[in-house]
């Protein structure tokens, strides 16, 4: 997933990684250490990658002015239209499931130019036909300022691209060893396939080496448990 995310980072852009986003932090740093040395990298609360002194307000104001090119979000539920649910399932007063809450996710899905959605669990309870509560909509009416929005969805099984023309999530590639049958079984909606859908390229050995060394050391500064467990061969 980190190597797939790295390919979405373009040199010279401003890339920001929010809270609880260890995999995007790995992908962004992998890109920064390889093809995107001139990217401006922001990783929330990382001592080396957090260029703000005014708390999260300064970051949110920066984002609201449209200064972020690429951002990452996740969802307790994610649906085929690219809607994200970070709030709850069920009745508002007595929810059946409670997610962490939206925080800035309803703004950060609009203002960065491209948002890559990531989720380390690909299952029918996450990837649903329709989210129960819309924290961050995939698309919005034309009279709402929205310079950006969903771009890709990256999971352990596949990469979806987001089609703003109405198709929503469309499978762009399946990871090596994943069949259409398996993806269908583990997704709560019938996945649509791009005509050119292929196999996700494997990470290069250079990428794997960097992930297990420089990237791991850098993310350990804010995700020590993740760094200690996620890079086991």
């Amino acid at each position, binding site marked *: 997933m980190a190597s797939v995310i790295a390919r979405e980072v373009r040199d010279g852009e401003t890339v920001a990684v929010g809270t609880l986003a260890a995999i995007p932090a790995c992908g962004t740093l992998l890109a920064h250490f390889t093809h995107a040395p001139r990217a401006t990298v922001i990783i929330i609360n990382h001592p080396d990658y957090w260029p703000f002194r005014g*708390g999260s307000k300064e970051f949110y104001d920066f984002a609201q002015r449209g200064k972020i090119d690429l951002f990452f979000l996740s969802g307790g539920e994610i649906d085929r239209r690219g809607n994200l649910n970070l709030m709850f399932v069920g009745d508002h007063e007595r929810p059946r499931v409670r997610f962490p809450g939206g925080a800035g996710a*309803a703004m950060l899905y609009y203002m960065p130019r491209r948002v890559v959605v990531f989720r380390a669990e690909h299952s029918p309870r996450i990837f649903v036909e329709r989210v129960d509560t819309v*924290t961050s909509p995939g698309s919005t*009416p034309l009279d709402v300022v929205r310079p950006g929005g969903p771009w890709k969805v990256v999971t352990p099984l596949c990469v979806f691209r987001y089609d703003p023309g109405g198709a929503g999530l469309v499978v762009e590639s399946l990871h090596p060893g994943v069949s259409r049958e398996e993806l269908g079984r583990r997704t709560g909606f019938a996945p649509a396939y791009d005509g050119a859908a292929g196999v996700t390229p494997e990470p290069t050995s250079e990428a794997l080496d960097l992930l297990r060394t420089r990237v791991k050391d850098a993310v350990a500064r804010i995700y020590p448990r993740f760094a200690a467990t996620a890079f086991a061969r």
Partner: protein
Amino acid sequence: MPVRGHVGSDYERLRPEFRVISNPWAPTERVMLVPPIVPDVALIHAIAATRDGTLLLDHMEDDALLAQASRTVVASAERIVASEELRRTGDGVILEGIHVTALVEAPGGARPTLVRGVSPIDADQIREYVAAAVDDAAFKRYLDRYVYD
């Protein structure tokens, strides 16, 4: 205050106090306004403070903003220092004492969370808290052990 985004999400349905208006400077656009949160009391722990309530705070956290939003601000600090020492430091942000209602010297007052540059996060303690918080009986044992006894 105005917020970009949000319009078209379920916030419009769930939070009736969030208003959607047309942007006065671009009337064909709809924009969301959210009311400010005004806490009655904010409890803030400072890296250091002076006797007049001026605080040295972690520059990566939102404590200075929280203090300015709240009606009453009760601060604790690792140590009380002279003004020259507080203003000489390189890291952190200074919140002037005009925003602070009351101050107490309380070393370790932020445990088990982090005081940047002073003491690290106590991750084991936080894991214990998370495990205890799953049911009332376990949480009562946690409180008895760490708070009441």
